[in-house]
């Protein structure tokens, strides 16, 4: 068997495929090539194994305790209060968002759409947590969940099975952002639920892709293949990032 050199185009595409950097046409092409060439499949498996190894075993160092304070001091000596939402504030915000969510419609205006999308989705997430069922269709089977979206929204979302990685699928529901229905998948990790919303990427909504926290809920946003993804959970930011990575690097069976 001839070994592929690391700069062969196919090898580069395998790496980009694992990284979720390919558009659907290229992803399909390389998936087909992999099924024909065991060496490429092996490369794909190695890259995934390496990424898992790095994520799971490599300790993520934190900055030494005093560094934040020294940096704060060096840019002006102002002591800022830590942004930890108190329970009282959180409870109030749940009441507030529940109130907003029960209202009819709301408009998205001004330069804050990005924040407002996050806010809307966090509201949906909180409402789902408070509802009897966090999903409209409850199933751990992606072959049940994916078709459920057909006919309810224009395109059904990418659904991957992450049960083995300890993120079992709980089901799916329709959320509404602005006045647009969007698909939300719900995954579970330990006692935490993760709402993963997919919507068509629009430049208007997709200016800022930094992780953020809304009322204590972590929000991750990324764009892949023209789809804008929002993951919301009270999981630690690091674990939510791990979930996003697993979702992005998992192969969708074709």
């Amino acid at each position, binding site marked *: 068997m001839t070994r592929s050199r690391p700069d062969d185009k196919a090898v580069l595409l395998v790496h980009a495929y694992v*990284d979720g950097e390919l558009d659907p046409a290229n992803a399909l092409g390389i998936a087909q090539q992999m099924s024909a060439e065991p060496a490429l499949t092996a490369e794909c498996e190695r890259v995934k194994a390496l990424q898992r190894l790095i994520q799971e075993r490599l300790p993520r160092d934190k900055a030494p305790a005093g560094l934040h304070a020294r940096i704060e001091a060096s840019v002006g000596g102002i002591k800022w209060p830590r942004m930890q939402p108190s329970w009282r504030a959180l409870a109030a915000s749940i009441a507030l968002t529940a109130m907003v969510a029960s209202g009819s419609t709301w408009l998205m205006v001004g330069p804050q759409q990005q924040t407002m999308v996050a806010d809307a989705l966090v509201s949906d997430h909180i409402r789902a947590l408070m509802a009897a069922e966090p999903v409209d269709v409850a199933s751990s089977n992606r072959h049940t969940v994916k078709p459920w979206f057909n006919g309810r929204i224009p395109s059904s979302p990418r659904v991957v099975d992450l049960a083995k990685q300890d993120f079992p699928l709980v089901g799916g529901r329709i959320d509404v952002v602005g006045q647009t229905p969007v698909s939300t998948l719900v995954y579970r990790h330990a006692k935490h639920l993760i709402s993963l919303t997919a919507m068509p990427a629009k430049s208007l909504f997709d200016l800022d892709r*930094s992780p953020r926290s*809304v009322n204590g809920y972590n929000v991750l946003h990324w764009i892949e293949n023209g789809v804008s993804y929002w993951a919301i959970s009270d999981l630690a930011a690091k674990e939510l990032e791990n979930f996003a990575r697993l979702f992005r690097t998992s192969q969708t069976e074709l």
Partner: protein
Amino acid sequence: MRLVATGAQDSLSGLDDNARFRQIVLPHIDDAYRLANWLTGNRADAEDVVQDASLRAFRAIREFAGGSPRSWLLSIVRNTAYSWLRKNRPAAVVTVEDLEAVELEQAKPGDSNGDTPEAALIAKVDADRLRRAIAALPTPFRETLVLRDIEGLDYREIADATEVPIGTVMSRLARARRRLIESIGKDR
């Protein structure tokens, strides 16, 4: 009436520099420190670099034009680390010629023959061996791998941060991973 609960990250316009700094830079100090640690190979140096980079970020805070604050900060950290290394540890800086030598060596026919461990074997490697193997990668490969597989930046962000085309990011990443996989598979 519109009621919207405000998030931690509000619109950045209209905030003073300190507030912008607090929202853009401070949340990512751990990431900055990790990258600096991988680039300098040493915790004390990493702290110096992050402090220095934070000051640079503060001075440039008005230039931040959107996008991911984290990758913006990381690219500043990266540039700061290199100027810091050039000044304080010139021997540690990889020159362009060194890199070309590495790439030539990598391009030799027969490259990566044989001993590539399979996925199951990779899964058994311990943290220490992994850390040493990453630390031993040539700098351009190491920074690309760290930005992608540890910090989770996408190719475009890495290309911007390391000032190379996306094609170069792709080939460095594939080579970095290949080298890493081969070296953690050795001397078991």
